């Protein structure tokens, strides 16, 4: 550090002021409000001012926790997110390794295709995948000879369809990041391993994976966070949570409770649960970063 940057001044705070103002007003304050609303009875009557808002302590939470549907949705969310994260990481890492094995033209082709999938908005990705798997006019059923089998009818097959779309649009981030990480590993290290007779799998497990651990941590945590709060895909592809809510995940569930059923207090309680779960994930992440000796 130079003397220029060492001198204590109020300048950094001046530079930070707009960011802190915006984040305080539109991120921190809403979080506080979310917590607050979750302790109140807050329905259409309170929104329109017909009834006063009444504090009811943990009422919303006890209503939520005694509702079997909540536990079912929570379990579905965790399993669905886990399946998405594992598939995304597996596909992304495998293709990143593949990218290092090929020459420029196939690499460019795969990169461009992946960028296209990455850039596709969630709404359009969802409609296109639905069209691909459409029972009447979609090419997939023709190709697999499935007749007019409906993918969105069954609970598992609907989740599988959404999973495919989610993996399709989120593996490129993993692939590109891990590929950049592999490229940063010195060539001599890999050559030495190859000369010592290590197999491809062995090189990945014993040389690349440990060197890439910081990057793998980041992409894993990012994937967990993204996949845990999938909203658009579920909402569009299963038409708001599937038949009788069979494909609900926490995010869509909260939305339906708040905006479809006007149970704003209950919806906020679900939001708080989500927030706490992701906060726990974040703390694990910070610990991992800390243990790896990352310097902020």
């Amino acid at each position, binding site marked *: 550090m130079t003397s220029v940057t060492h001198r204590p001044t109020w300048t950094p705070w001046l530079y930070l002021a707009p960011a802190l103002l915006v984040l305080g007003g539109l991120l921190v304050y809403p979080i506080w409000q979310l917590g607050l609303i979750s302790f109140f009875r807050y329905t259409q009557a309170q929104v329109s001012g017909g009834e006063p808002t009444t504090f009811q302590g943990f009422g919303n939470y006890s209503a939520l926790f005694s509702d079997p549907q909540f536990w079912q949705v929570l379990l579905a969310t965790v399993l669905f997110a886990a399946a998405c994260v594992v598939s995304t990481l597996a596909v992304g890492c495998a293709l990143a390794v593949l990218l290092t094995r090929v020459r420029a033209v196939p690499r460019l082709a795969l990169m461009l295709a992946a960028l296209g999938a990455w850039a*596709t*908005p969630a709404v*359009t990705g969802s409609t*296109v995948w639905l069209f*691909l798997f459409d029972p009447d006019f979609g090419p997939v059923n023709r190709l697999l000879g499935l007749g007019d089998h409906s993918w969105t009818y069954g609970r598992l097959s609907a989740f599988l369809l959404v999973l495919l779309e989610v993996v399709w649009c989120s593996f490129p981030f993993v692939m590109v990041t891990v590929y950049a990480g592999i490229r940063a590993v010195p060539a001599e290290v890999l050559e030495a391993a190859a000369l010592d007779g290590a197999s491809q799998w062995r090189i990945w497990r014993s040389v690349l994976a440990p060197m890439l651990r910081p990057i793998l941590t980041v992409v894993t945590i990012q994937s967990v966070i993204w996949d845990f709060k999938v909203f658009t895909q579920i909402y569009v592809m299963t038409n708001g949570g599937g038949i009788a809510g069979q494909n609900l995940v926490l995010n869509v569930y909260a939305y339906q409770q708040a905006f479809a059923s006007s149970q704003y207090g209950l919806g906020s309680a679900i939001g708080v649960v989500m927030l706490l779960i992701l906060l726990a994930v974040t703390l694990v992440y910070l610990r991992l970063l800390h243990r790896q000796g990352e310097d902020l």
Partner: protein
Amino acid sequence: MNPPRLNRPRLNPLRHPWRTAAEASALIVAVVVAFPLYWMVLGAFKPAGEIESTEPRPWTLAPSLDSFRRVFGQQDFGRYFVNSLVVAGSVVIVSALIAFLAATAVTRFRFRFRTTLLIMFLVAQMVPVEALTIPLFFQMRDFGLLNTLGSLVLPHIAFSLPFAIWMLRGFVKGVPEALEEAAYIDGASRSRFLWQILFPLVLPGLVATSAFSFISAWNDFLFAKSFIISDTSQSTLPMALLVFFKPDEPDWGGVMAASTVMTIPVLVFFVLVQRRLVSGLGGAVKD
């Protein structure tokens, strides 16, 4: 990466069976990954009879613009397109400026609570913004912003900031300290250094960072659905697209045409900044 001999091109594929297999699989994967996008564009250009056919073909001999005409004619689609551009554009510009200032503060200065702030920016990235829809709905109502584009712009600025600051850090760090000292020795003021020297140097990084703010704002579906409740003239593209998408009887041609119109701008933007995106991500991840 590879031992040098592997990099020399050879004509006989049998001499490098593994690389040939790898390249073949890379190409196959590329085709599979690109296929949904191809099918979308194809579906947009297929005439009505072909798209709703029980024997879909992966080509069309009679491309037509009917679906696009329907999309732009039936709905006020042009207007929604402009609305989406206004929202995404405002978010990109405002959040880039704010993030640039903040990133400069946390990389070019040492001050109390600096590390605390950085950790807070990291934690802020993890906040599930969707969970905040309910309080934000009431906040926008109190601001009188419901049913206006402002209700979409403001939250997205806030949500794209933490990641933008985090990613820009790497780019600001990359500008040598010596340059800053030289500028001051030459008599430049702090703001002159900031806007006339640092800003142009960090601009490529700003563009890459903007890709993420642009996409999150352009793609936004939840806020548009929740905050633009009654005034459809303020709708954005995701909502307009769903007009053609009725769960029982979707107008697939219209949906594919609208999807194409919505996807192309992001695609162009992404391909333009992809090189910087990759290096920027590398920087943000490794730092």
